[in-house]
Every structure is written in structure tokens, then in C-alpha cells.
């Protein structure tokens, strides 16, 4: 059932009432006035799935005619728009929206030893055939130089289609109305919260991506990604910024405009405002440099996973395939770390690609359906994120376990015109089954720090250490007493830090995080998301970074 324009305006009115009764917007537009500004007016003439499949087939035919022994192709039509606040002289004015629309295609071909990859960004038969021929020629050329064989795990042929479920098509909602939503939220927040500086973006991306292989796979997926970024509020007290949690969740999701305007949203907004406002009542101060016990709230733990732990399980990083690019892994070399007790016994970490999150998909970019994987079981490294090119490294282990040597479905191209890589996963750290709230974790703490995620972590080339930045609070005798100013960071080595794990929170402490990361050269963007409970570690090194931001 879709909400009409009238219902959306009612939502905006309700939102402002929840925030303190401030009238929103300076005018009401009629449907006729606003109809012209819906993003789909700009992007009408797209490429239909059938056209994309025709182009994909042309590429594969050309690749095989030119000597490829295997080829796969991804072609996509992608539309995107985003609009945010103008953070200049007119805080209640939306900034210029940007809109784009792209065709992207990339062919990967093998002649035995290696892959050749060629992209084509013109949606014509000629261009895709040229790309297919070129990919095959590259593969043959390098096979002549490098006479080794490439292991490429088999995968069953799959045929299917999937579309993100949604209720309201965001591309059909006039931009004027979306601008009103931004202004309404921002005015409502300021009316309700002192020192507030809200920053709300609305944006969606719709992509139809076809994946086709010479072994019979054909998948067509249409993703509707909410690229909305929405820290509800940044409150400034002096040099200290206090961020609320995300109003729409810490992980970008698949879905329609109902994500912004669903009936639960005003209540969520109200709850976040009420949770965040008291934080501004705490005094802020700097912490003395030193070593303290530290509690990661759920979002902070999730940040640790999306930025360090999770990517370390990408098997291409472990095998050294990214050594000159994004780096290797603290799990390298594989022979030394596989099936060892490397992480805390309390940690059981799963990976998957549920389609509700933008890290998810029905099929990966090799046409393999993603399988849930247990990466860590009670602290033991049990598995990795794999694709068809890397899974062969686990042949002996999988054979011993009696499982097939098949990709788990974690192959991703950031856009269809980029070479596939291992990435894009949603990680879940299992919470403590025993009742353990954040207050319980704080209870025994004489003097320590609470990290309020999500956090930003400056890592290293093996994801083994970092400098962690973000919102922090001081705990004394089990209670929060101060907010820390932004002069501190926590320096840590990952595995020694996790060795000091004393407690894990229960399901009530679970938080979310979502991170963009770069892989490959030239770099492409890959996403990771995670849900995780709070955790207490007995030793974090807090250093000064001088000055606030």
C-alpha cells in the first residue's frame, strides 16, 4: 500500500509536533506544482533489463569467439540522486541536489592462467562486443607470459530475478517535498534540542544489474538503496561534538521512501532526541592520558568489525592478492592462523548478505547465492569470505570437513564496470545469551571510558591496530560522569585489546555500523555492515590528539 502525498505531509506535520510543535515548511505545494520535480522525470529513459541482458550476451559471445575458455559479464543501469542541507549561509535551505545516471559494463575473461578485464560504459552492442574481445585478448596475452593455471571453483548455473521490495518509489516523490522533509526535520530538531546542528540527507540509488556467465548463469537484480545519511544531531558545546545515533539506523538499507516516512519514524525521532538531549547536560572535560578499562557500546563494537575484523576475513587479502592495494590481513599467512584460537572465546562471528541491507544481494557478482558463514566460533578462526577465484585455497580444509569447495558468494564489484573482488558482507557478532546490559558492564568499573559508536578507526595495512576516534564518556564507580571532549583517541593493537575482553553485552546492547572501504587499484568502494553487542575490555590506551573538531 503506498502513502499518498497527503499522508506524507501529515507525517511531516506529525514529526514537527513530536519535536515540539514547530510548524514546518514555508509553503504547501500542490501535486501539480511538484510533479515536475520528481527525480524520475530526469531519468525516464533508462535501460530495461531485457536490453541489459542483450548487451551482456553480446559481450560473452564475443569473448568466447575470441578464445576465452570462460567469461562472465556484469552490466548495469544505475540512477542516483542526493540532496542535503546547505551548510553555509542558509541552514534551512536544501543544497543543490545532484542527480546522475550511468550505464556500466565489465567483462572478465580467462584463457587459463589469469583474467583479462575490460569495461564498457556505452550501452551498445558494438561496445560490449569490443569489451568481450578485448578481455579475451588480454587473458590470452598474459597466459602466454604466465603459463601457470588458475584455479576457479565451479558453481551451479543459476537463473533468476530479484527486485528490492518497497512501498513508496523515492524517484516518484517530488524533490520539493523531499526538501520540505529535510527542512522540517532540521527545524524540529533545533526547536527541541539546544546546541543542535542536524544534518539530514535524502538520497537513493536504483541499480539494475545483470550478471551472465558462459556456464549458463543469468541473474537480474534491481537494488533500491537508501543512501540517506542522517546523524540526527551534532551538538556543539565549546569544542565538543556529541552525536546522536542515526535516526534511520546505522546501516544503509534497501527499500523505498517509506524508510524516511514510515509511521514508526516520528516515535524513533522522539526517542533519539530524548536519549541524546541529556548527554548535553553532562560536563565535558579532557581525560588524562593513560590506560583505562573501556566499554564499547554496540555501535562501537560494530565499527571495530566493519573497519578491521571483518575485512581481515576477505580471503583475497589473506592470500596477498591485495598486498599492493588495500593491504593484507592479520590472518596472513593463512597456514599460521586458520583454525587457531586467535580471538576471545566469547566471540562467535557470522557473515551473511541479508537483502535488507545494502551489503546484501540475492546473488553475488559471479552469480553465486551468498551463504551464511561462521567466520569465528568461540574465538577460533573457522572460515573466510570467499569467491570462486579464492576458495580453492581452502580445498584441503573443506575436503577434510566434507564440504564442497565452492564460493560462499562474497564476490562484489563496487560498480559493474570494475573487476570483481571479495567484499560486501554483513557481520553479526553473537550477543551474550546471559542477561548483561550496558549498565551491568559499567557496574564494576571504578574509572573507565564508554565509547559511543559508531567510531572512526584509522587502521593499518594488516588491519591489526588502530587509532579510534569518536564520542567518549568517562565512567566513575559504574556511572557516567562526564562527556569527554574531542581531544582524545584510543590507540590499540587489535588482538591484545581483545585478549582483555571481560564481558559481552546481551541482545539489548546490540548496535549497528556501516562503513565504506576501498579495495583494488584503481580503488573501488566496497561496503561492510555489522551488528554487535557491547563489550568490556580491561585495557585501552588513551592518547591526546590535541584540539577538538
Amino acid at each position: 500500500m503506498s502513502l499518498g502525498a497527503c499522508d506524507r505531509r501529515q507525517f511531516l506535520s506529525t514529526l514537527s509536533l513530536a519535536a515540539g510543535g514547530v510548524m514546518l515548511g514555508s509553503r504547501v505545494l500542490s501535486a501539480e506544482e511538484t510533479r515536475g520535480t520528481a527525480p524520475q522525470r530526469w531519468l525516464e529513459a533508462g535501460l530495461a533489463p531485457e536490453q541489459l541482458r542483450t548487451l551482456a550476451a553480446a559481450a560473452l559471445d564475443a569473448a568466447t569467439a575470441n578464445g576465452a575458455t570462460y567469461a562472465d559479464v556484469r552490466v548495469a543501469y544505475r540512477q542516483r540522486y542526493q540532496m542535503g542541507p546547505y551548510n553555509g549561509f542558509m541552514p534551512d535551505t536544501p543544497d543543490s541536489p545532484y542527480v546522475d545516471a550511468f550505464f556500466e559494463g565489465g567483462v572478465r575473461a580467462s584463457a587459463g592462467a589469469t583474467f583479462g578485464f575490460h569495461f564498457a560504459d556505452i550501452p551498445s552492442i558494438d561496445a560490449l562486443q569490443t569489451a568481450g574481445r578485448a578481455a579475451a585478448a588480454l587473458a590470452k596475452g598474459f597466459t602466454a607470459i604466465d603459463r601457470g593455471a588458475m584455479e576457479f571453483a565451479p558453481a551451479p548455473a543459476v537463473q533468476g530475478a530479484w527486485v528490492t521490495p518497497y512501498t513508496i518509489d523515492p524517484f516518484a516523490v517530488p524533490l520539493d517535498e523531499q526538501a520540505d522533509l529535510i527542512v522540517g526535520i532540521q527545524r524540529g530538531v533545533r526547536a527541541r534540542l539546544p546546541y543542535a546542528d542536524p544534518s539530514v540527507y535524502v538520497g537513493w540509488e536504483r541499480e539494475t544489474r545483470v550478471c551472465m556467465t558462459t556456464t549458463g548463469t543469468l541473474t537480474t537484480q534491481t537494488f533500491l538503496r537508501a543512501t540517506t545519511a542522517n546523524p540526527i544531531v551534532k551538538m556543539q558545546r565549546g569544542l565538543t561534538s556529541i552525536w546522536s545515533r542515526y535516526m534511520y539506523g546505522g546501516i544503509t538499507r534497501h527499500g523505498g521512501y517509506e524508510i524516511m516516512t514510515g509511521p514508526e519514524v516520528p516515535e524513533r525521532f522522539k526517542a533519539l532526541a530524548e536519549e541524546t538531549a541529556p548527554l548535553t547536560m553532562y560536563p565535558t572535560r579532557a581525560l588524562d592520558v593513560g590506560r583505562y578499562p573501556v566499554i564499547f557500546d554496540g555501535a562501537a563494537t560494530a565499527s571495530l568489525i566493519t573497519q578491521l575484523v571483518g575485512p581481515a576475513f576477505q580471503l583475497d587479502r589473506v592470500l596477498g592478492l591485495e598486498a599492493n592495494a588495500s593491504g593484507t590481513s592479520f590472518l596472513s599467512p593463512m597456514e599460521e592462523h586458520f583454525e587457531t584460537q586467535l580471538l576471545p572465546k566469547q566471540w562467535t562471528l557470522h557473515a551473511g548478505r541479508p537483502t535488507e541491507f545494502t551489503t546484501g544481494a540475492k546473488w553475488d557478482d559471479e552469480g553465486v547465492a551468498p551463504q551464511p558463514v561462521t567466520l569465528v566460533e568461540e574465538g577460533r578462526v573457522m572460515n573466510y569470505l570467499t569467491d570462486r577465484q579464492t576458495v580453492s585455497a581452502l580445498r584441503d580444509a573443506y575436503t577434510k570437513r566434507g564440504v564442497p569447495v565452492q564460493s560462499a558468494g562474497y564476490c562484489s564489484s563496487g560498480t559493474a564496470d570494475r573487476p570483481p573482488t571479495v567484499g560486501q558482507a554483513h557481520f553479526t557478532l553473537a550477543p551474550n545469551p546471559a542477561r548483561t546490559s550496558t549498565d551491568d558492564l559499567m557496574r564494576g568499573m571504578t574509572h573507565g571510558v564508554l565509547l559511543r559508536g559508531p567510531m572512526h578507526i584509522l587502521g593499518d595495512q594488516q588491519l591489526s591496530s588502530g587509532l579510534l576516534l569518536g564520542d567518549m564518556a568517562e565512567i566513575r564507580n559504574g556511572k557516567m560522569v562526564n562527556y569527554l571532549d574531542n581531544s582524545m583517541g584510543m590507540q590499540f593493537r587489535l588482538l591484545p585489546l581483545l585478549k582483555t575482553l571481560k564481558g559481552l553485552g546481551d541482545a539489548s546492547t546490540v548496535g549497528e555500523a556501516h562503513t565504506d572501504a576501498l579495495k583494488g587499484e584503481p580503488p573501488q568502494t566496497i561496503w561492510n555492515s555489522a551488528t554487535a553487542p557491547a563489550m568490556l575490555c580491561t585495557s585501552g590506551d588513551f592518547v591526546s590528539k590535541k584540539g577538538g573538531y
Partner: protein
Amino acid sequence: MAPQRNEAHIVVPPAGEAPSDPVMSEAALKRIADIVFDLTDGDVDGLQVEHSARVVTRVANNRVLTTDNGNDIRLTFRATSGGRREIRFTTNLVDADMLRRSLRALRELANSQFGPPNSFTLHVATPQQKLLPVQLWKETTSAAMTEASTTAIPQMLTPLKSSGLKGSGFLGYSARAVYAGEPEGHRAYCRETDVECTVSARFPDGKASGWYGQANRDWSKIDPKLVAEKAIDMANRSKGPSAVEPGRQTAVLSPFAVAQLMAPMAGQFDAFATNEYKITVFAVSNDPTRDNKIGLRVLDSRINITSDPLDPEGGYTPFGDWPVDNWAMPTHTMSYVEKGVLMDLAHTHDYSLDRGKPFNQDPWSMRVEAVPNTQLMTEEEMIAQCKRGIYVNRFSYVGMLDSPSALLSGVTRDGCFLIKDGKINRPVKNFRFIDSPMFALNRLVAIGKTQRVPFGYMAHDNGQYYYERWPRRPMIVPPIMVTDFNFSALSDAV
């Protein structure tokens, strides 16, 4: 490599264009722009057409991993109305029907009520404004894009395969042509080539590694064999590292390391961020007489920092060529720091043009060099005069911690050595650092000769989005020796 002819599309290279050119000529891009302006019949105020091509080969574990070749056309349109903020639309779909409809909608949106009227002045270039006569195109690189990787890659692989180490590498050629302007106004065109070659060499046990790289617009200046050999040498010299207590130490930083410290500084020179947001190191708060530190000494007096489209090694497109810039607006030779004194800021925003300042982009092409007649030292000479310190080959995962102080943090990698009594003493384990190039360049002991350096991989961090873009703008930097560089902790990473 030129785009294919297709009846549904308007991208048709004119007859006579050399088929081997990887990107379109000025005449071809102009023709596209003219067709599009006619098609859109006044709906757009500005257009940028960019045609880019790349030939990339990646190596991992001493084998070819993949290629990443192809070319792309991108059109970005701009429409404004009534002095309101502009609307932008970008696409690579050059279908006439689609463009006509989309751009009609673009005009409708620009005419709608976003923001108060007359709040924004669109500055456009005039035909009287001349572009600097840059020379960024090298035929050696253009010609190499069709054939060279099949001979160059074996040159990289051969030393790696015989070294006993695991080698990974990148060899990327790029060509780019951009054409921008208004329907009846100023037009600008520029084309460029670039090459980057980098190699990492690691011991199979993962306990030591080395790295080296080269970058140049001219393929004839790149030597993949040498790059591989130097990476192998650095790895061999890094074998068996021991831990050294972290702390403030004298540091000798190679040009690779200096480039990674200076790259995040590009945004610091932005006038709007400095004067209005006060979020850069050059901002002044609480002083009614000044917004910034122009005229004040901010670095050691032996340092100049310039950004010049005509720079023989660091040149770049002489007009705004990002969609957020003022398109086709000429850029100029900029001297940002002279003898350590801040001379100017980059005026990238219409707010600056409203104030009569010349337009320029943030200087992510940058030359950091010694003032003329400064005594220069080689890295060996710097080491020779160091009683105790750390030599750093390069950094990794460098990110901004605090913009007002330009405080950065990152990790050393691929060659980190203890200097003792004027000699390299031994390889050491890697460090995390927390320091600012502003602080470091005020503790300068010695400076060397500049060279163009590759970045290698740059992690996405803190909005340094322009470093995700490839190829990256040139950085021309020297090796330096500084005191009290803050190696804040040991790092387990190799």
C-alpha cells in the same frame, strides 16, 4: 579505443581522428558539446564532457592477477535560474532522447524554489580569460597504451620471480581529455596522460616487506624492472626487524613518505574552509583584524609550496575541471608558501570570486621544495649527520585527526630503519605516528631535491575523496629530515 559508432548515440568521432588515440580530440569533444547544446535548446548553462581511458595491469604473488582496461565518456550538466543555487546532472548515457527529456527536467528544477533568489552568483569565464599553455600529453604514453603492458609486465615479474619473495604490483596508464564551457561563452579543452608503476615485495612468512614506485606523464621515464628491483632490495634490507621504543625521534622521510603527509594538506589551503568555517590550520579566530594567516610565517623559511598548471613535473588541467568547480574558469600559477610565509589561499568557491579573488582549485597538485640557494642534501647525507633517528620509506592508512592543526595519524610500512651514529643500523618494526606536517615542517633539519612520486594505494579517510580518483594529481616533494617526529606506538602490521 575510441568509442564505438552507434546509431542511437551522438558520440561519433569525426573522420580523420587517429584511431590509435586513446581519447577524443578537441574537435570531437567540441562537436559533442555543440550537439548537446543544440539538443537542449537553452536548458543548460554549462557542460563538461570528459573522455578518459586506462590500461591497468595488477600483479599479485608474482603472477598477473587481472587487468582493468577501458574508456568512459562522462557528461555533466549545470543549470541555474534566478540567482539560486545550481543543479547538476551527470551521465554517461549519450542517447539523444534521454538527454533531451532529462535536461528539460533539469531546467524545470532549476526554476523551482530552492533557496532564496539572488543568494548565489554564478561566475562564468569570459573569452578574454586565457588558459595557460600546458603540455600534459605525452605521445610515448599514448602509444604505450596499446602494447606496452605485454612487454612491461614481464620486466616487472622477472626479478620478482627470481627473488624468492612474493611480489604484487600495479602498472597503470591513463589518458584523459576534458572539454567544458557554456553554450555561447568560454570553452576550454585539455588532454593529459599519466603512468604509475608500483611494486610491493613481501617475504613468504609475511615478516618483512619493501615498496617502490614511479609516476610520470611520460612512459619513457618509467622503468618497471627498476621499480621491482628497488622494492626487492627494500624488502631484503627489512628482514628481521626488531622493536624500538616509540617516542619522538629525528626522522628522515623519503619523498614517498613526504607525499603521503602532504596529500591531506590540499584542503587546508581552501579559502572558504579557512575564512568561514575556521577549520583549517591557516584559520585565525578571535582576531577582528584577520581571518587567516596570510602574511605570517607558517613553515620553515626554507620551504616554498606552489601549484602551477605549467609545472614541468606537476602540471595539470589549467581550468576548473571538477563538476563542483567553476567550469572552464582558468586556473593560475599559485604560490601558496614562500620562504615559509603563507602567501595565498585557494579560492574555489563563488564566495571568493564575489570578493574579487582569482579562481583556483585546492592544490592537490603540489610542489614542495627548498627555496633557491638552499643547501640540499641527499637522503644518505641526511642519515650521515643523524646521531639517532628513524628512516621511513613510506606510510600507510594516513588520515586526518584534527583539521585545525592538520594533525595526522598513520603507520609506517615497507622499510623502516633505525639510524645510529650516521648509519642505517638495523630494520625496525613499524610505528604508528601522530603528527602534523605543519609541526614537522617547522622542525626541519635538512631538505633534499624534489621528485614526482606515486602515491600508491591511499585509504579512503576523512573525506579525502579526491585521492580515490585515479590517476591522481602530481605531487613533487623532497626527502626531509625533521626532529621530534612523534612515533606514538609500535604497530604489528607489516
